[in-house]
């Protein structure tokens, strides 16, 4: 017990001191004059358009995307809208913080696997502070201490290890993903201790998370439907960019 406290406090020294173990990221330039932007093709676009097999992937993706849209339109979006109407913003923020807190063990393990010690201790302290002062994770008090939340999952860990993303695929119900990230998602669900409490808990946690995150992006998805010419391509591009930003921890 005493030993555990000692280790825990030493972790705090890393956080609250100036010692930084993370290396400085090099900033690339992704913005090239339009004259030479011909050269910019994302890896997944190549994979999707390379040969006949790839076209089938795109067709399959579009099919699943449209299936997801139908299911969403009929079931998930109305539930998410109801959730947004019934629960006030304050309440939804609390639920969001609680969901983030529950996924802390996964983030902790993956930060450790990535060798990011600072983030590892950040997650640990966030979990402790938010679970205690923040009443079971409902309040993100740790943010006021400067401990910013950043979720690490197994897909990001694999990316940090250098594994390529694989083709862009749309998963039924789960939505946009890549081969690597789909596998990572399975590992994440399996590696969260809270999911093992009971099947009921696991289902409640996962379904609340889905409804909550759907409600968060309702406005964005409405925008996409209204403004874009090819929603499938828009969602794909947004997903790939967001994922790259998550993997590089906001540096790209």
């Amino acid at each position, binding site marked *: 017990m005493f030993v555990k406290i000692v280790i825990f406090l030493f972790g705090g020294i890393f956080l609250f001191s100036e*010692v930084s173990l993370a290396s400085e990221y090099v900033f690339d330039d992704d913005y090239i004059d339009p004259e030479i932007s011909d050269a910019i093709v994302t890896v997944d676009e190549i994979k999707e358009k390379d040969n006949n097999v790839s076209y089938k992937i795109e067709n399959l993706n579009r099919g699943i995307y449209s299936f997801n849209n139908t299911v969403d339109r009929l079931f998930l979006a109305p539930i998410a809208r109801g959730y947004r109407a019934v629960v006030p913003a304050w309440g939804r923020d609390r639920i969001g913080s609680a969901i983030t807190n529950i996924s802390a063990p996964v983030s902790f393990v993956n930060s450790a696997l990535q060798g990011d010690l600072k983030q590892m201790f950040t997650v640990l302290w966030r979990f402790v502070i938010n679970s205690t002062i923040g009443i079971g994770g409902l309040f993100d008090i740790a943010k006021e201490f400067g401990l910013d939340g950043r979720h690490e999952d197994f897909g990001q860990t694999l990316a940090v290890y250098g594994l390529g993303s694989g083709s862009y695929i749309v998963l039924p119900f789960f939505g946009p993903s890549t081969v690597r990230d789909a596998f990572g998602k399975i590992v994440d669900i399996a590696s969260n201790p809270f999911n093992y409490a009971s099947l009921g808990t696991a289902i409640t946690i996962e379904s609340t998370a889905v409804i909550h995150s759907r409600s968060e992006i309702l406005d964005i998805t409405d925008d996409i439907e209204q403004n874009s010419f090819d929603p499938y391509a*828009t969602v794909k591009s947004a997903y790939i*960019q967001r994922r790259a930003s998550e993997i590089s921890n906001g540096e790209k």
Partner: protein
Amino acid sequence: MNTNIIMFYKYFFVLTLFIAISFTAEKALSDGVDIIQSNKTEMNLLDEKKSALIKETEDFVASISSNFLKIINSDALIEKEKEKELMKLFEEYVDTDWMGRFALGRYYRAVGVDDREKYLKLYHDYLICSYVRKFKDYAGETLDILRVLQKNGGTLLVQMKMLGDIGSPDIRVDYLLKRNDDGTFRIIDVIGEGISLITTQRSDFGSLISRKGIAYFVDKLSTKVASLKATKY
């Protein structure tokens, strides 16, 4: 009792090793950085010019956001007038031509010179209808500048954070600015949580153009602009 002490020592040993390695690594890193910096006499001059540019950018961002807030919060203007004033701000500080060219990507060269004017005008209206009119959604959130980075091609990336309330998450918003020769800046991209507006648009437009052709796309664009203009927001 014995096993507890052994365990304690085991833990302690691992912990000390861990701390020793990390402090050594950190020291090595910072020593390395010091050595590099002491060789940078020439670079220091460039750094001065660079930080003047960054200060200029920060001043610009501060002035444009205060203009924006003045208009939004003004009690003297009715909503229609606010919209007009914001439109003026938009015209002056957003380079829709550059954005429009980027959004077409590799297909820009395939567009005939006379059609380019038409496309850029449509793109300009498209941006206004889809985003500028949403200023009514702005609820007075503050945007803090995190830092300004210099990127290639005379562009500057202003990284900002939209602060949530206590207990709510912060949102990252970046603006990409292009500096003109006369010292003014214009916005060429907005990046929300890592998702760049013009990059997403390029994928969107490109997907349609690659399957149906440019003429079809421009046609669709004008239809969409017309329908967006017609909807009451």
